[in-house]
């Protein structure tokens, strides 16, 4: 009996190992959280310097249309109006999501409902392959194929929002498709059975039951695609023209937050207004990705509520 008592009071090796494991995983977690926190801090401290050190008016930064840091604009203030880039980023994101959504849903429905076997065997691996293609490849194809195509068909130089939209459409399509397919797959089989047993056709079942039940998941997929489109830099930069002007139409050269960032960040001196203004752009990007993230979480939670009790 005493041996058992002794062993109960002593920490066993197994419990020590468990403790060690817990500590290690906690350290990993803390490291990641720390990095995220530092990124936020760094971007914010640099980005806010534009407003606090260089005394740029926040409203003028967001609504100004002249972007030429280092010079003074017509109003005597530094010319750091980010509106052209903000508009460009949003336009390109929304347009590409608008075009990609119907294609993605159609493909996903085919993959999961109409031909699940071929979907699982061929379509899914292909879409997943598309996700993995480096963005510079997309950008290069955009430069060589899409830009001339847009130039011939719609006029202009070919560089602009439209070309960027086409390139991003292809880039986000696989993401939205495979996430939509996941959402459709997650619809319980008994929903379909219930609908079919009531004499509904397959199309009625897909349209009225399966798609309805998958709406939250598909919204998440679309927002995810938008987040990717918003943050994409390289491919867009290659086809959009990079003129810091408010886009007059879809084929006039424009720019996005990301394209101006990648173009400019190497050419400025740390601490200068030119540099700080770019950090402010980065801050907007970061805030937007935060918004997208929150939207995804919010939709996901709402979806869970409406699909369960």
């Amino acid at each position, binding site marked *: 009996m005493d041996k058992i008592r002794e062993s109960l009071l002593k920490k066993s090796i197994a419990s020590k190992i468990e403790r060690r494991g817990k500590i290690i995983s906690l350290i990993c977690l803390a490291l990641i959280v720390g990095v995220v926190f530092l990124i936020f801090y760094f971007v914010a401290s640099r980005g806010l310097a534009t407003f606090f050190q260089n005394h740029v008016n926040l409203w003028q930064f967001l609504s100004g249309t002249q972007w030429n840091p280092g010079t003074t604009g017509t109003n005597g203030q530094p010319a750091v109006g980010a509106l052209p880039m903000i508009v460009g980023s949003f336009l390109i994101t929304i347009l590409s999501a608008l075009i990609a959504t119907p294609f993605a849903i159609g493909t996903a429905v085919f993959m999961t409902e109409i031909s699940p076997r071929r979907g699982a065997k061929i379509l899914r691996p292909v879409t997943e392959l598309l996700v993995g293609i480096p963005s510079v490849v997309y950008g290069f194809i955009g430069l060589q194929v899409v830009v001339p195509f847009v130039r011939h068909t719609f006029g202009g130089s070919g560089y602009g929002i439209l070309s960027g939209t086409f390139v991003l459409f292809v880039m986000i399509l696989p993401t939205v498709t495979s996430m939509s397919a996941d959402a459709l797959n997650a619809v*319980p089989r*008994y*929903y379909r*059975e*219930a*609908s*079919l*047993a*009531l*004499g*509904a*056709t397959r199309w*009625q079942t897909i349209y*009225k*039951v399966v798609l309805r*039940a998958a709406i939250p998941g598909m919204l998440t997929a679309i927002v995810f695609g938008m987040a990717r489109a918003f943050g994409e830099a390289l491919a867009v930069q290659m086809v959009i023209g990079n003129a810091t002007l408010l886009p007059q139409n879809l084929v006039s050269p424009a720019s996005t937050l990301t394209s101006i960032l990648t173009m400019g960040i190497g050419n400025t001196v740390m601490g200068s207004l030119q540099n700080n203004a770019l950090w402010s752009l980065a801050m907007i990007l970061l805030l937007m990705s935060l918004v997208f993230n929150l939207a995804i979480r919010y939709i996901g939670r709402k979806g869970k509520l*409406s*699909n*369960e*009790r």
Partner: protein
Amino acid sequence: MADNSMTTDQRNILKFDPKDHEIALSTEDLHVFYGKSEAISEGDLQFERYKISALIGPSGSGKSTYLRSLNRMNDRIATVKGKIMYRGLDINSNDIDVYEMRRHIGMVFQRPNPFAKSIYENIAFALRQRGVNKKQDLDEIVERSLRQAAMWDQVKDDLNKSALALSGGQQQRLCIARAIAIKPDILLLDEPASALDPVSTSQIEDTLLELKQNYTIIIVTHNMQQASRISDYTAFFNLGKVLEYAETGDIFTNPQVDLTNDYISGNFG
């Protein structure tokens, strides 16, 4: 399972005299295959109109497979060979409009499966697909179906609440109401009470006895007391074959096949 190679030859299948009994549905030489393995090797049954017929048997005996074949819910899952006769037509043929057929042969599943919609919309769903769109008609049918399923009084003030907020028993009765809203001829039920507590079970059973006046009911059940309580005829399945089919009273008091006797007295299964 005991070696029953001796006894599987023993069979006792009731055949109705069409003069005295109206037959709603019958199967002739039905075989069901999952890939290459045969789940149902012989299924010859006749189901009388406005009666409850129960299918009993141990797990894996093929009774659910058989039931699901009757309104072709197995179409994309298994291969069904043989004839399923309904109103003089073989509904297991390619000429049949499956969706139209399911309107006449409805089904309720083991697990309550309401849609994530309101109670009202759950019932209106199939009606809208059929082109019933007038609010007045819909209201009327929703009320009638819920009354028939004996739940109108409980939910009449909550028709717009989510069906998922109902209890399991209520959900299952909603599924029954949903199935009868399109006025089928025949109602197939796949262990409708196996996921429910005793009180809900007895309510479902009362509902079925009530529905018997207007519907032909075929029910798969694991629960032998349930079969004896509510059914008029009982078929005993074992290893993909119907071994005995007779009036329920006879099956439970005087089974002709040894294996049936073993099963209902709890010796196996």
